[in-house]
């Protein structure tokens, strides 16, 4: 039988996430005076530590909105969705969703999708290691066998689709000292992967998102090519040249 949670820990936990709550009963200072500021150290450690973790995970979102706005937004998220795992690298998977519904970001409709791209980059960083198939091995597949081939993609491969130019926004904010102006006219789909130790991000050709999504499901190249429009040569060229394939079953 699972023992009941310790009620003192439950009261302590509830007060940690409620900034207006009084410290739980049963705590004392050596002088028998108030313990509010002492308890606040724990509350501050919990919340600030989690905000810092999000700031590290979503640095471009931080640059887009500024530190003060980001930290206020992250604080709301932390209180609404504390982590479920002691591994902080896994914290924040629902942060993009939170941003999408966070009213003060209405002026920045692309922000949630940029956050999804940053989350994908982090996933690729920590993904299982695998050795890509050498380019010669990929090229050795006869053209007439390619349609029936099933690709195993690198475990780090992530794809993100957006109505906004998220790769352009991310690139200029991640690398440029003076941020370039980005036209919001067209959307961008992005391939993220880490074939070795560096995470890379590439713009997907037309139809690339659906094509790769189908390959990830284990479909053959021809079955995955049913999407329209699709620039198949460009998609295959990108997967080959980025070392995104670890095995081919023909």
């Amino acid at each position, binding site marked *: 039988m699972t*023992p009941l949670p*310790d009620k*003192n820990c439950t009261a302590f936990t509830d007060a940690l996430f409620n900034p207006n709550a009084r410290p739980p009963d049963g705590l004392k200072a*050596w002088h028998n005076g108030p313990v509010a500021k002492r*308890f606040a150290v724990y509350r501050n450690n*919990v919340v600030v530590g989690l905000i810092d973790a999000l700031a590290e995970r979503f640095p471009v979102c931080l640059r887009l909105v500024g530190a003060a706005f980001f930290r206020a937004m992250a604080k709301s998220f932390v209180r609404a969705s504390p982590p479920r795992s002691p591994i902080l690298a896994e914290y924040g998977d629902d942060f993009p969703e939170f941003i999408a519904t966070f009213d003060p970001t209405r002026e920045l409709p692309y922000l949630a999708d940029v956050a999804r791209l940053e989350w994908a980059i982090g996933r690729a*960083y920590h*993904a299982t290691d695998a050795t890509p198939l050498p380019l010669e091995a990929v090229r050795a597949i006869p053209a007439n066998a390619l349609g029936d081939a099933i690709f195993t993609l690198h475990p780090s491969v992530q794809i993100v689709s957006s109505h906004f130019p998220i790769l352009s926004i991310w690139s200029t904010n991640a690398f440029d000292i003076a941020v370039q102006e980005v036209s919001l006219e067209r959307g961008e789909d992005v391939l993220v992967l880490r074939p070795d130790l560096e995470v890379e991000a590439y713009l997907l050709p037309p139809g690339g998102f659906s094509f790769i999504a189908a390959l990830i499901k284990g479909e053959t190249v021809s079955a995955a090519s049913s999407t329209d429009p699709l620039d198949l040569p460009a998609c295959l060229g990108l997967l080959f040249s980025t070392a995104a394939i670890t095995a081919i079953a023909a």
Partner: protein
Amino acid sequence: MMLDDRCTQNRRPAAALPARAGVGFKGLHFAEIIRSRPNIGFFEIHAENLMGAGGPPHAQLSRIRADYALSVHGVGLSIGGGTPLNPRHLERLKTLVDRYEPASFSEHLAWSSHGTSFLNDLLPVAYHMETLERVVSNVQQVQERLNRRILLENPATYLEFETSTFSEIEFLDEIARRTGCGLLLDITNVHVSAVNNYFSAEAYIDAFPMRHVEEIHLAGFSCDSDDLDQPLLIDAHCRPVANEVWALYQRALTRTGPIATLIEWDNDIPSWDVLHAQAQRAEALLTMAKKIKARRFHAVAQ
């Protein structure tokens, strides 16, 4: 130790950490460590930072582990928690410890999870019979699963519990006695807790059950004040070790003799040279402790 000696330790699990100074490993120091191959006693990592599947964190640690002794320090097991240990987390830890075969694994007398929420801080435990039995059972469960003795660290605390019936030292000693675990003595935590809870850090060091201690931690703290304007020190790991803590360390060394000592610096991380200099200061005190021990041994032998 010569560089060549270090390289021959490749992958062999050490029985214990060397009685030398080590530092917390940070990825931003990796290139400098590989380039300069510093003569450091050991590196320590936080278990939870190495629980991703792959990527640079594991690539770097494998490289470090090939040349140096390693200790793994957990911050997420919640051994003092009010809910049972997370079995998935224990399995992840088992995988990590099996993979890197560290010389030691340590955790905290604290809790950091409640139910399904992870609270990302080392929260305080009341010291009474019910919590003692819970911690003892959790330590036993961890030691059985990891198939090794673990070390448990004394916490930095900002307040106390009305329900406590043990002193912290009695509580830790009883856990070590019942489970056979070792203890990790964090001298900065002693100083921080002593100021915050108004007891003598010197008396604490003098009374601590050193026979269980296998590692010492030293770190920087920051200063604040409480509701009555009394000093409130924060265990922030964000600056050099303070002089008061160095003095307490020397006091502890006279009781422990030379012992594995870690410089912890986790926030506002300095350049490698600054961190290394802290370790060299600890190493100098350890060398002095070794000489004293040798003299004492000589005196006894005569």
